[in-house]
């Protein structure tokens, strides 16, 4: 007799829900059965009863609770949107590769995030903050469509207070109250001084945004492609390299990614409709 252990969902309790934007909430999730881990860059699969599974990046770990920031875009995520403190959900993971924190020791870190793309990078910011001495300068470039779409606004002050940290935010379209930058996230790149020999860039956002960011980082900042890391999104039905959906060329995003060294994925990433 055999069972499919890979697919056993573990029960977990939503211990806290924070609204980030109109359509994005952060969930603090407390494991009920066994500990849930998750390193920066990795993702878990969340399962609202009867809805289906969705891969969601780890956006933080706090007091043993794991945090996931979810934007409600489809059937399953909209089901999650109805979950409140005390709801039970299913979860499996963590899966996937992690941001190159080891390689970044004593290096400057440049984070470029677009929209919901800040969620998987938040744990990196927290890690640098916690072990500040181990890393070089921290530069965060973050863009969203409107001021209302910015994630973690309540934490922005905390980010800018991190020692030796540059934090730039932009929106595609401002409103009356907005006094900051306006423009796509790549317009922030000239604002930072980058030492190409000593910087690791971590990029996450919509695919077009990543294409232009990487291009700028290489062409304008002279960053070598092996110093750039991107986090990719694909349809995933299993999360463990079985179902085939997440392939990008020879890579399974769920196992070989989602975080890729750009030099490794470049050949495929740049091909249309790959």
């Amino acid at each position, binding site marked *: 007799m055999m069972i499919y252990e890979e*697919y*056993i969902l573990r029960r977990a309790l939503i211990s806290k829900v924070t609204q980030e934007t109109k359509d994005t909430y952060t969930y603090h999730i407390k494991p009920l059965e066994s500990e849930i881990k998750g390193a920066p860059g990795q993702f878990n699969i969340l399962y609202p009863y009867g809805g289906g599974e969705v891969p969601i990046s780890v956006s933080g770990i706090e007091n043993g609770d794991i945090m996931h920031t979810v934007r409600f875009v489809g059937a399953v995520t909209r089901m999650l949107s109805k979950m409140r403190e005390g709801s039970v959900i299913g979860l499996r993971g963590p899966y996937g590769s992690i941001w190159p924190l080891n390689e970044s020791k004593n290096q400057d870190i440049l984070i470029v995030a677009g929209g919901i793309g800040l969620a998987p990078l938040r744990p990196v910011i927290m890690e640098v903050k916690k072990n500040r001495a181990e890393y070089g300068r921290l530069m965060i470039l973050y863009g969203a469509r409107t001021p209302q779409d910015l994630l973690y606004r309540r934490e922005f002050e905390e980010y800018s207070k991190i020692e030796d940290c540059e934090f730039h935010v932009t929106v595609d379209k401002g409103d009356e109250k907005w006094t900051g930058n306006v423009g796509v996230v790549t317009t922030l790149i000239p604002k930072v001084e980058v030492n190409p020999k000593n910087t690791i860039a971590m990029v996450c956002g919509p695919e077009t945004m990543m294409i232009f960011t990487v291009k700028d980082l290489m062409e304008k900042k002279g960053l070598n492609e092996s110093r750039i890391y991107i986090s990719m999104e694909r349809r995933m039905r299993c999360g463990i390299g*079985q179902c085939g*959906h997440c392939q990008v060329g*020879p890579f399974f995003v769920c196992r070989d990614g989602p975080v890729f060294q750009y030099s490794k994925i470049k050949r495929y990433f740049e091909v249309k409709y790959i």
Partner: protein
Amino acid sequence: MKSIIMMGTENELRTLFDKFKGKATIIGPKIPNGEIAIRYCELNDYSEIPREVEDDQEPGKYKLMQGKFFRHGFDSPKKYMFPSTLKIIRVEKELEVKPYNYDPKETVFFAIKPCDAAAIKIMDKTFTWNKDAYYNAQRGKITIIVENCIKPGKTCFCATMGTGPRATENFDIAYTKINGKVLFEAGSIKGEKILMEIEVLKPASNEVIIEFIKVMDEAYEKAKAPFTTINLPEKLEINIANENLWKELSEKCLGCGNCTMVCPTCFCFDIYDESHLDEHVDRVRYWDSCFTYRYAEVARGHFRPEIWAMYRQWILHKFSYWKKQFNILGCVGCGRCITWCPAGIDLRENVKKASIGV
């Protein structure tokens, strides 16, 4: 393991079949009542294996007729280890998860073709890497008896893929029917032991072996594609961004997905949540295909929204990425995707064109 060729007659083949009767589920070729193709199904008796029939296969065409040697229909051993529909887990309210249990039976694949045996080898790599519980449970209980192909069909290209027409690995016993004789080879210790129990079998004489080689050599020439696998992954990827090429190659493609469904190695699946009124949900695994529109769809976009890109994914996965993923090519040259493509697209021609560019 001694690879001695033993000689017998059809009687010994029947004896071999009977050895498994009652001890294992025997899966082999059969034309079930009213069917119009050879199918792999459970056999109760040796006599159910078709005789005096031949399958005429061409791109987009399959016909059964009178003849001496048949190959295969559209289904392959894949469906026994990777069922087209499978309940994985049951979830009850409050998220109580109850896994379904699997208890696969001891199974013999009898009279499958060398390409099918080779496909199992590929699946072994993909599914073992994947830790697929169901696959592994069934796979551990399988005996493979191969019939070598003395007459490859018009869509076969196993010779090019190095998987046939004579089986060289991944089988327990292989046999070849030549002019009234049946030659047996063991491919594993298990196979050797079984053969030893059939006392009537004698080592084949040199003349018989020469005859055997000649038949197999002739067969080999008939199962070639117009390309070689040497450096194929690299050659194909040179054209990866050549949109026009892929558009031309997929000009007739209907995106119906038949090719991936009949392929003995394709492994993609989807999982549906089948909710029931009594408040339980079955998470069910179904075969999926890179030709379905939803395959590469994400919440707000689509990574492969056009047929040509899907077609490229399929070819490149089989003939390039697969090698990088599993250190083996994903195609065995059985030709099923050529025969069963309703548009009759000839994969061999397209791989050839893609590997040199147009």
